[in-house]
């Protein structure tokens, strides 16, 4: 099994979720994060004080899939999340040793 971590632009979340369900992914976990990278944040000015944030809001998707599905899932994310502009984000893939569905105790791929 693979853990796919995707950092994407927030407004792409819905498209990516649909793309993933499209390739057969049944579940995923999403969190709000801040990204630091090439993309620069907007400048904020409060009275005299100017702040150029170098952190931009991003969405992190974590999804565990069977090894066979991993490539298609990565492709699906990449296709759905891409705008061609700086800051589109990254996808990382890690190995997962074990998976458990808490409700049933099922393990590994049947747990997903």
């Amino acid at each position, binding site marked *: 099994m693979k853990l796919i971590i995707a950092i994407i632009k927030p*407004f792409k979340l*819905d498209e990516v979720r649909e793309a993933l369900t499209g390739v057969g992914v049944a579940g995923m976990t999403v969190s709000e994060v801040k990204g630091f990278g090439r993309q620069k944040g*907007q*400048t*904020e*000015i*409060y009275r005299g004080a100017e702040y150029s944030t170098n952190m931009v809001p991003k969405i992190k998707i974590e999804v565990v899939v069977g090894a066979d599905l991993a490539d298609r899932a990565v492709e699906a994310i990449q296709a759905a999340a891409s705008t061609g502009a700086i800051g589109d984000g990254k996808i990382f893939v890690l190995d997962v040793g074990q998976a458990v569905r808490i409700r049933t105790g099922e393990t590994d791929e049947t747990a997903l």
Partner: protein
Amino acid sequence: MGVQMKLAMKIAAGAGLGALFAAPFFFGPALAQAPAAAPVVPTDAMVNKGDVSWMLVSAALVLMMSVPGLALFYGGLVRTKNMLSVLMQVLTIVCVAGLLWVTIGYSMAFTNGGALNLFVGGFSKALMKGVDANTFAATFSNGVYLPETTFVVFQMTFAMITPALIVGAFAERVKFTPLILFVVAWSILVYYPMAHMVWYWPGPDFTAGLPDDHGYLWGKGALDFAGGTVVHINAGIAGLVGCLVIGKRVGYKSEPMPPHSLTMTMIGASLLWVGWFGFNAGSNLEANKFASLAFINTMVATAAAGAMWAIIEQVVHGKPSLLGAASGVVAGLVAITPAAGFAAPMTSVVLGAVASVGCFFFVTTVKNALKYDDTLDVFGVHCIGGIIGAIGTGVVADPALGGQGFMDFTVIPAVAGKYDMASQLWVQTQGVLTTLALSGGVSLVLFLLLKFTIGIRPSKEVEVEGLDINAHGERAYNY
């Protein structure tokens, strides 16, 4: 002379008649037009401190309706990324409209407009010329006056909130500077003329001598205690036109756009309710029994509308919502506005409940059917609620239903006029139609003009990222 003549005498009602009928007393030139027989000369001695106290409080309350009331009511309903844009639009409009009011607005609304007098005033009081601590404005009682500055500032708060109401219709997708330009133009071309048509008259001590010195709708005898036409229908239709010209939000109906803070919306609705007593009962211009009547009517119509919306939701989908109750509260406040000083408490309850049903149906069913994106339901609540209230006023004002009828100011002191519900309903309808036509038409021209010149809508990118950071360089929250 017929109906027109009869209606011309039907000027306003019950000694406590609302801003609709309010007009300052004119020194000098105006007096020159007065017929023989020693005219009243308003003095300090005709001013009651209880009235001044009440009217200043009322003006403060109406300001509180705009900021923070309306700003929060609207702001809570948008997404976080656009929160400040809404707050900023309302605050800036309040500032700009206030300045415009002392510059030309008051004069255009409340002075004699010469040849155009039926439709708009003139510039004789532009830049507050001739208005100072020693000039006075008429109330609805013979021999009772307010300091003119009191009247100017009370009316100013109406001229501030009305254009601010409009922005809700196209919140989250409008450019700031063009919006402010629209507000300036709309105030001049729509609001001041409407205020003049509905609210301009020489006051109870001078009507007999100046029977033709009044605005068009005032002359018809339209009843509008605190601005159902001038404020709510006027703003509501402008909002609808605006949201149609500007178009739907990116993602409308495809992505969730839940309110970012219903807590703020609740604070806003509550402060609107509290402030609205200044709006409605203040429109009586005097702290007397009619102000009190307008006050209690405002209270119970609102309670009825708030409860009714919750009941409908309970019936329709089993979950009465806070946003629903708050929307009902505002719908009730809108509907009772024109009727506040004319109705009785129990007929106000009915009017509030009916308005709630009408607005609920509109914002949940009609809007979805017609698929326009009136972000914060300015049309569905303010225009529809305003129309229900304006027409309903013709019903509840009927003395046969415990209403206050209207006063005939052509005699001194004024006496009650003879009420005919059918003809009154027709007059009310004319008031509604005039407002819809003028405000709808001019707004359409203005929005199109802006759209095809400097542009009225931000780029898709800016809209998606949010107006706060792009247009104002700030974020609402940094928790």
